[in-house]
């Protein structure tokens, strides 16, 4: 797993959002709206978190939905990381 310092501020915001709304299924556009960020910046940030297995992606040909991982070990890692920062 990459070091926690490699998390960007935007990725921290995304993780915070999903911890607060753990039932949410969101798209790039949706996240951009909630966080007031550019979709171009959101997409790589989301995919980086999917690579870490902290988020799950649900992709179709036209759309990708993102959710918080359902693996509690990773959820605890996220909580620890956000608390430490």
């Amino acid at each position: 797993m990459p070091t926690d310092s490699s998390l960007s501020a935007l990725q921290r915001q995304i993780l915070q959002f999903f911890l607060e709304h753990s039932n949410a299924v969101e798209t790039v556009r949706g996240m951009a709206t909630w966080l007031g960020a550019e979709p171009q910046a959101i997409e790589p940030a989301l995919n980086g978190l999917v690579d870490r297995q902290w988020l799950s992606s649900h992709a179709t040909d036209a759309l990708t939905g993102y959710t918080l991982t359902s693996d509690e070990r990773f959820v605890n890692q996220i909580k620890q990381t956000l608390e430490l920062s």
Partner: protein
Amino acid sequence: MAQTNTWLESLSQHSGIQRLRNVLSESVAQPIWWTIPGESPKSLEYSNACKVCPFVRSSTANRRICQEKFLHAVEQVRRTKAAHHFICPIQRSAVCLPVVSGGQTQGYLAMCNSQRVIPKETVALADLAVQTAGQEMEKAKELKNLSEAIQPRCVALSTIHTIHRLISSTLDLTELLPRVARLCCQVLRVQSCAIWLLDEQKKLLVPRAVVDLQKGQGLSARSCRIGKGLVGTVALTYKSFLKERMMVVPLVEEECIGVIMVRRASGGQPFGALDQEILTTLAEQAVVAIRNAQMYEAQERITWGTIKSLSAILDGMDNSSSGTVSHRQLLADVALAIAQKMGMPASQQKPLQYAALLHDAGRVGIPEEIIRKPSKLNRLEFALVKEHPVKGARFLEPLEILEPAVPIILYHHERYDGTGYPKGLKKEAIPLGARILAVANAFEAMVCERPYRKAIPVAQAAREIASHAGTQFDPKVVNAFMALVKTKQLDQLMKGA
């Protein structure tokens, strides 16, 4: 002063109050500002700023006198809820302003140590500024509370919308059902989810998707009869079942078409009414997508049956003995295998199969002796044969469902080097489906016996096709075809035929 009042602190930092302080400070040499929390304060907190006052600085007894005077003024303000101007023990001017929010006095802002009397108009203006800032802050607080209350609902609404888009983007049940089950696991934070669909002919609920994030520790889904067991009972009664670790909800669209079950591992939070509401909403979304996919599947079966019937009818009308229905089915299967090997999008695969079944529809009407003629055709005869792709396309054009298959039928006799017919198209100008059909057609013609010609082995047919890569056939299609030959997939298809 033990009391804290963050709201009052924030108010004292409000831009309107800051401006007021600046304006008053200009007319007072060394003003002392006070933020006094609570409706009825019992004491004052003397800050470092108070050291500029010679009276307070000189003795503790003086500080007590000052505090008494100040608290008396505060009490007056509390009663009248209006600004109060007063003179301190060393005859300097002071003003105390109430800070009211939601009808409640939150505290007081005060200023003292003015060597000049503060005019009434200035006091009134200060009072207005404090009350306006208070109202502004109150509104901001209300907005924040409203936003905090609304946001989870907006996120939930957005989630429902995203789920709707994710599950309605496919009409393939084998793709849709696991996707729904996985989304249920994610949204409800559960370990497993299973979906049963009703097999109307067998009157059985059949498990069609099981997602188990704990790998084997969650659900074991079996077929069951309506009315039997938990799943069967939910399907019969249309009533959801809720237990601490399990929820079962019917998939209802006028009638029950299935059941969805989720389970949460021990240790997690027990399910509640909100979870049931979420699962019911997901089930309502899923049922529409499932019905659409089922209707699409039924429509596909009807279309496929119609095409096959049409192919059989054309066989009966075709004197050429160009192949039986089973030969055409082999041709369709080989074309599909090549298309899949080449990664052709799924939406283009069905038209290719339709075209394979109907590609020689235009041969109806060509005299049998021309088709079976062992010697070279004369110019007139060849011209007649060359017309069949155009005729076939024209026959089938009126059928809207065959629209994407028509170009494949029209151009399946084009050659990669541009010497084919009817248009002499070259390379990628020939539709991919037609390039694939050309290879599959040649293969089928060689490996299937005709009344007037013996079949040849697959390996020999493959060599023949490979030798025409780049001239008659698209080399990329030939490569995909040869890969199927290598893995013996074509032999399996031939056995099936």
